[in-house]
């Protein structure tokens, strides 16, 4: 019984002490030092942010040996490839320039899109175009009709000559005589 009453008094003593400790504030020594330390840490963080710049970040690879050497080697290879490729192309172009140039009349070179004949008649569409304005559209139409008419008559005439051997011989003789006169033979 005695032990139980002793334990109760010790418990109440302990509770009183903890109450006193809870109510009492800690006594800070070296407030200024703590403040300084905090301020210094804040300043360091700002300093780190201020020191971050693009060139350092962009060219960070120059401090990594294998990256630096790799990029330099790649650059040298690219420049060499460019030099070889361009010199080969130049050599081939020079060889081409030494080749004979064909100076045939326009047709063998092909009629270019911008070919401008004095007069152009599209026989399929019947459209007529003229370089210059010496003839009116009416005159051109008459001209085209004349050509068509002449062609039709000419084809009839040729057929007539072909069908008649005597007439054919006569015309051939006359034509050869005319040619002889023309060339003073």
């Amino acid at each position, binding site marked *: 019984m005695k032990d139980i009453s002793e334990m109760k008094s010790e418990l109440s003593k302990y509770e009183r002490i903890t109450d006193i400790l809870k109510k009492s504030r800690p006594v800070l020594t070296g407030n200024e030092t703590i403040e300084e330390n905090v301020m210094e840490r804040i300043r360091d963080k700002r300093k780190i942010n201020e020191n971050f710049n693009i060139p350092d970040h962009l060219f960070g690879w120059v401090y990594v040996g294998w990256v630096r050497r790799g990029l330099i080697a790649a*650059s040298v290879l*690219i420049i060499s490839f460019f030099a070889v490729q361009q010199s080969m192309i130049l050599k081939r172009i020079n060889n081409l320039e030494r080749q004979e140039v064909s100076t045939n009349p326009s*047709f*063998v*070179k*092909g009629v270019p899109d911008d070919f401008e004949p004095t007069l*152009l008649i*599209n026989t399929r569409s019947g459209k007529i175009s003229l370089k210059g304005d010496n003839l009116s559209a009416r005159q051109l139409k008459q001209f085209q009709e004349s050509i068509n008419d002449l062609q039709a008559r000419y084809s009839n005439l040729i057929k007539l000559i072909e069908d008649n051997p005597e007439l054919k011989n006569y015309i051939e003789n006359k034509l050869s005589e005319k040619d002889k006169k023309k060339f003073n033979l």
Partner: protein
Amino acid sequence: MNSKPLKVAVIMILALITSCDEPETVVTDIVHTDGSVTRRVEMKNTENKFDIHKIQVPFDSTWIVRDSLEFDKKGDTTWVKRAEKQYRNIDEINMSYRSDSGCNKSVSRRSEFKKRFRWFNTEYRFAEIIEKEFAHGYPVSEFLNKEELAYFFLTEDVTNKFEKGPDSLRYKAFSDTISSKTDKWTIKSAMAEWIGDFSTLTGDKATGDMTFDALKAREDELVKISMGNSKHFDSLWTNGIILKEFIGEPNAIRYKTEADSAINLVSKKLFVDFHRYTVRIIMPGRLIGTNGSIDSTNVILWPVKSEYFLTQPYEMWAESKEPNKWAWIVTGIFLLFVLAGIIFKSIKRAE
């Protein structure tokens, strides 16, 4: 035997080449970067006489045709027929060659297009190829030297310019030498082809002196006999005299049918039904290589004659390149970046 004497045959080929009854025809292939090709055919004649079925390249109703009558400043009249078709790719062109029913259907032709990425540039190669007629003939390069070979493949206007120029005598002599050498080449190739065709026709029937190898070993003998009797080749062959001289009387009698069939085959190949024309190719970008003649507008052209593809394929090729601007920019930026890095490092080291 239906063939003409060989010398006459060679002259006939040359005569066919310079024939002026047909309209002048130029086939222009405009090659695009995606491999599509715009093909233009331009036929020019002093008369309005065009047979569309005798056009030199495959032609069908999908072509756009335009006829015109043109008067030049001198007043000369020219009838021009122009036709154009867009081919989506080379396969379409090759398909049209395979189904060709035009005047040049007897020759085997094809086109090739290659596009190669070379970082700074993209290179393009376009070729028009006509397969050879003779399987056993000799390449003309074995008979002509480099200079003669270049002259042989020149366009007529260029050779005419030389032969009418200040050094005309030298060039005429040069041209005569080439003609004489090409005559020999034609005859030798024709005889080689005859041996080949004859051996194919006789097959296993031929033994001993009549095998391909035995006849091939005596090929020069046959060439000598043929050239020596070129004036009367036709009658001498018909009477079996040339054959008897070459393979002996018993063999000449035994193999007469095969020998005649073989010479007929050779004649058909030698006088292949072919209408000459001129090919022009316009490549994308800058031209860097070709085996054709270049005209004053930097367009390449080739004359197409049957003798060019008699014993070897006739390949008309052109190569061009186009710069890849984006690759130049990317490379420039990369090189500047590396250079700036090196400079940066040396500055830092100095600090």
